[in-house]
């Protein structure tokens, strides 16, 4: 299903703290429900390009949850303020307007589409990268696909959104500072699983910082586990126009992450960039 052509103004229905992050909800009056992994280009109606200041370009955000609303489709986004655009989105209050373009990009595959023997799924999230895995988890649970979740966080201030997003699911945590779960990387948890029977029987889905994605991709390749990574890249347009979100392709050339991704298999991209 294609996205409605053009951006549209959506109202913020809710905005609140969620762990160390912010979670806001928009009501999209036009678009259909997004698939897990898809993203939207977002810019606030006010105080965006105000007096020629940044932020100027819309920001790409993966959708964390969605569902029907009275006046359209509810879209939940988990966000961390790391610059002028995300800072502004963190300030959103109910009733404010947000320009929305999407849903854009491809989506995660089902485990059996990735490997015939993959009956279950292992979801690996790092930091704010937990967002698209929430919607993916719900989609798998609805299909009775056994789903386990591994989440890693840097510290207490960069953690959370968990209760709402990952309730009723087998979940294991890791943190760089040891404030919660395993004291170390989330990839340590994945390594333990892949050492067991899981490499053949589960597909791995990951979203998080580039180093984490690269490690997950390499581990899965070595273990022979099917894997998909939701990647991130600087992006001006989200619909293939700007060619800014180039990611080196395995074998040469580049992918446009917005239209060829954001979900890729490790063997599609050059290892140093996965």
């Amino acid at each position: 299903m294609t996205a409605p052509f053009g951006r549209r103004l959506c109202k913020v229905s809710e905005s609140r703290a969620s762990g160390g992050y912010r979670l806001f909800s928009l009501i999209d009056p036009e678009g259909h429900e997004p698939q897990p992994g898809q993203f939207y280009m977002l810019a606030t109606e006010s105080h965006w390009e105000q007096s020629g200041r940044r932020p100027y370009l819309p920001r790409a955000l993966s959708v964390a949850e969605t569902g029907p609303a009275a006046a359209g489709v509810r879209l939940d986004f988990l966000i961390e303020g790391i610059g002028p655009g995300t800072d502004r989105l963190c300030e959103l209050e109910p009733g404010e307007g947000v320009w929305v373009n999407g849903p854009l990009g491809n989506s995660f595959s089902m485990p059996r589409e990735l490997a015939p023997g993959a009956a279950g799924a292992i979801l690996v999230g790092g930091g704010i990268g937990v967002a698209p895995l929430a919607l993916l988890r719900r989609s798998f649970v609805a299909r009775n696909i056994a789903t386990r979740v591994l989440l890693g966080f840097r510290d207490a201030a960069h953690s959370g959104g968990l209760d709402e997003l990952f309730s009723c699911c087998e979940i294991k945590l890791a943190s760089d500072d040891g404030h919660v779960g395993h004291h170390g990387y989330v990839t340590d948890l994945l390594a333990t699983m892949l050492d067991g029977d899981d490499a053949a029987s589960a597909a791995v889905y990951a979203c998080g910082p580039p180093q984490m994605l690269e490690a997950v991709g390499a581990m899965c390749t070595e273990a022979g586990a099917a894997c998909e990574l939701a990647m991130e890249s600087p992006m001006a347009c989200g619909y293939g126009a700007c060619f800014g979100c180039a990611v080196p392709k395995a074998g040469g050339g580049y992918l446009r992450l917005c239209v060829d991704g954001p979900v890729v298999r490790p063997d599609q991209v050059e290892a140093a960039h996965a």
Partner: protein
Amino acid sequence: MPDFCGIELAHPVINASGTFDAIAARRVYGDALPANFPFSAFVSKTITPEPRAGNEPQRIWETPAGMINSIGLPNKGLEGFLAEDLPQLAELPVPLIVSVMATGHDEFARLVKGVGEREEVAAIELNVSCPNVHSGLIVGEQPSETEALVEALRPLTEKPLIVKLTPNVANPADVAVAAEEGGADAVSLINTLKASAIDPATGKPGIAAGHGGLSGPAVRPVAVAQVRAVAAVVTIPIVGMGGIASGADAVEFLHAGALLVAVGTENFRDPRAGSRVAGEIAGALRAGQSSAQIGNAA
């Protein structure tokens, strides 16, 4: 209904080359794209003789009221374009202008002949100004080089030739005059302004190539000044562009002497910006004190 070099257009707003991929957008938005096509003519991304992968990331960097890009002209090359892209672009409901770039006269000639003989193509834009590719600066910076190139290409096709001017010269009007004397049917300006930004976190340029081209509202006053200067010295039509995000912005360029305007970076923020700007132009003209001539152009 502007008449641009004999091509009748529904309105005066087209796209800047390299700022809208109609084939990708068709995949994303489906039939709603051709049904509501934002531009009165479509300008392709620049085609080079051989395929190019484009530049190493990071390719874009946000700035106040704009962005710097160094994309590096990724494209399928002439053969790939003709075989794969042209049939899809020919399905668009508007005339097609193909942007081409090469490093020398012979290669440019190959492009102009190859593209010019296809009936799906309404006009050809000569990219002599893209600052991302080293060789691109050479011709477009020199009036004599520009005139010689256009003179060499002019006999090769009956299609209108549009010369895209670089703003990175002391006097773009001199280059515009040279383009007209060489036989150009129109000029388009401005291309991006050479620019750089340093990432404060690393102390290194934000763009992997070190520098790129600045676009967006930040460049608009520069573009308006250059369009005015060029309009004062050429008789051929002008396509004005640089930071146009609204009808009021477009009207500045029409007043400055442009027959058509092109929307570029604003497409990234609003995929339907072309239609929006076109719709706003009449109102913006009424709001101002428009002359009869400007009214006709709109």
